[in-house]
């Protein structure tokens, strides 16, 4: 069974179990429950009051904790997939362009040539957003809040500075990279982030102008390719 299917199954099962338990606990009054009668659950006997307390613990603590663990696993594993990025329409231009065989952007060239076999967005953007460190995750939650409340403007702009390490982690040390003389010249600048790989290697994604609503390219870039 694939991890995604398992997460769907577990997440739904836990949610339904939680609803059932919370419904049962919530509609019963504990005060009149007897502590002398017994209720059997399998081979174990409880008083109704004890059983209610155990169910309350399961409904309000144990199952919610498990549900949050599963859902957060779902979040932090799911964000590695290109499809997860494409679910926000502001990201669709990047993905449409990446999968466009005629595009010359860096992302499209990496995709077309199979340089990154899977999770292409995450491979180059693993240091920020929900996939990054704690500060980056906080920033990712800000993005989510802005998107879901509609408090953003298109075209979206990257606030930070792209980290060269995202490129160098794959390219550093490869014969092709090392054979280029200018790479040796600028290496200290690249390592210190005083110079960006993008300064020489061009546009990574469609331009802001192309991603602006109303531009001739906007509608085409919103059509997500399979």
């Amino acid at each position, binding site marked *: 069974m694939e991890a995604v299917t398992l*997460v*769907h199954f577990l*997440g*739904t099962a*836990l*949610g*339904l179990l*939680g*609803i059932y338990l*919370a*419904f049962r*606990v*919530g*509609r019963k*009054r*504990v005060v009149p429950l007897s502590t002398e009668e017994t209720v059997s659950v399998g081979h174990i006997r409880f008083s109704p009051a004890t059983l209610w*307390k155990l169910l*309350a*613990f399961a*409904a*309000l*603590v144990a*199952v*919610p*904790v498990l*549900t*949050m663990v*599963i*859902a957060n696993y*779902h*979040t932090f594993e*799911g964000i590695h997939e290109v499809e*997860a990025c494409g*679910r*926000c329409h502001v990201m669709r231009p990047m993905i449409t362009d990446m999968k466009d065989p005629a595009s010359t952007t860096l992302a499209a060239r990496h995709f077309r040539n199979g340089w990154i076999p899977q999770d292409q967005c995450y491979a180059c953007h693993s240091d920020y957003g929900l996939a990054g460190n704690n500060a980056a995750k906080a920033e990712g*939650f800000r993005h*989510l*809040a802005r*998107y*879901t*409340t509609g408090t953003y403007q298109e075209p979206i702009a990257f606030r930070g500075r792209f980290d060269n390490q995202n490129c160098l982690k794959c390219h550093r040390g490869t014969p092709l990279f090392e054979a280029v003389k200018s790479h040796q010249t600028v290496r200290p600048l690249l390592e210190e982030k005083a110079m960006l790989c993008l300064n020489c290697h061009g546009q990574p994604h469609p331009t802001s102008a192309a991603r602006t609503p109303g531009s001739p390219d906007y509608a085409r870039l919103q059509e997500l390719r399979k």
Partner: protein
Amino acid sequence: MSELRAECMAAIVAFVISIGYTLSPGPYWMGAFTFIAQPLFVLVMASYLVKVLRELRGRRVL
């Protein structure tokens, strides 16, 4: 222990959102899970634990 009706109602809302997010992990369900369901779960657990502690103190167990 005092009644837990409000906690159960809040937990049911949070569970419904969690199921929605699990089955359809789009940005709106993700936002609802992150900003509504998770805080609700935390509030529910905190409220439950406060009531348990109050009862234990009332019975002089703690």
